């Protein structure tokens, strides 16, 4: 077993885990943060995307022990419970950026990372290129792209990062 301590959504957490534990397993099974999904489990689909030290990564391809001492943000960390949604979440709601919703947490975490890297004015082309690692099996990409463009703009006027 391995002892780990890290910051998840701003809160210090600890765990005594088998080193084999994937970050996504630790989040879902130990911390019960089930917003992060396991889709393909092969680093293709992006349903498991979280932010590790502020950067989008695939938590199905990261060992939880490798995140020891680091900072993780999941979809649950974007906005507080009961508070208004994060602008990117709100944009997905407003523009119907989801059908079944399974890929949505990963799409939104990827989108927020994209805004951090490339700013608030994103062309459709850039958004589509940047969604390379996120698959939607409902093939709802059109509204996902519209949602991300709108969410990126809305983030410019929000306190939520």
């Amino acid at each position, binding site marked *: 077993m*391995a002892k780990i301590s890290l910051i998840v959504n701003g809160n210090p957490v600890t765990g005594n885990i*088998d*080193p*084999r534990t*994937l970050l996504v397993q630790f989040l879902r099974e130990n911390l019960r943060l089930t917003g992060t999904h396991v889709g393909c*489990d*092969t*680093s*293709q689909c*992006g349903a498991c*995307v979280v932010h*590790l030290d502020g*950067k*989008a*990564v*695939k938590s199905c*391809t*990261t*060992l939880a*022990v*490798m995140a*020891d001492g680091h900072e993780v943000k999941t979809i649950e960390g974007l906005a507080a419970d009961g508070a208004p949604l994060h602008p990117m979440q709100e944009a997905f709601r407003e523009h119907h950026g989801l059908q079944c919703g399974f890929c949505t947490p990963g799409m939104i975490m*990827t989108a927020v*990372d*994209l805004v951090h890297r490339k700013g608030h004015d994103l062309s459709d082309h850039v958004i589509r290129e*940047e969604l*390379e*690692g*996120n698959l939607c099996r409902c093939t709802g990409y059109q509204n996902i792209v519209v949602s991300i463009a709108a969410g990126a703009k809305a983030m410019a006027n929000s306190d939520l990062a």
Partner: protein
Amino acid sequence: MYEFKYHRPETVRQAANLLIKNEDAKFVAGGHTLIPVMKQRLAAPPHIIDLSHIQGLDGIEIKGRSLVIGALAKHAEVATSAIVGEAFPALAELAALIGDPAVRHKGTIGGSLANNDPTADYPAAVLAMGATIVTNKRKLKPEEFFQGLFTTALEPDEIITKVAFPLPKKAAYIKFRNQASRYALVGVFVAKRPSDVRVTVTGAGSEGVFRVEAFEQALQKRFSPKALDGLTVPAEGLNSDLHGSAEYRAHLIGVLAKRAVEAANARA
């Protein structure tokens, strides 16, 4: 995944010692090759040595006439580095074509080279530029470093610490991706170096990255796509799978090489 013991060394020396002490141990940096293979139970290393917390191995700098990149530099860092973009834009473009944004936040140049996947991108640039692979023990030229499918000259206690790329006059990398895996079905790197021209191919060779000397000689006389008219690469020895036949890959090499020369010439 099978059980393993996890180690987190803080220096290259500690990491090398851990590898000597623990037989069949494996290094992990970004983990985007090793972890999937362990999940599939195709590898079951009893010890995992995490290199990602060793300080000072992720620098990117110009030293003399070379671009020196630390082994732990991530693909995203190479792709967006102002230094790389200025001195060797073809390399920044290559790094930006690896995997997807989340994968590029984890994968490292050292990990990619040590794995020597026959469809990886970096080996094409390293062989084309005659880059020096620096380890904790010695310096290696690409011709001695790459030894075929997933095989390198690295010894059991040897760790890549940096890669030094001599700078080209002009270069470009054109990749035809497998749409699902994002690895190169074929990738061609063309470099006009101070003394000669090199053309390297990844994704197609059954023994990994290789040079196309007939193309190099033609481009040496005239660095133009037209110089490659009528020249072909034989399909023998090329990979053939459900994604493309050896003949298809051979054809792609010719097409991509011309596009790479065109792209290199388009740079001011």
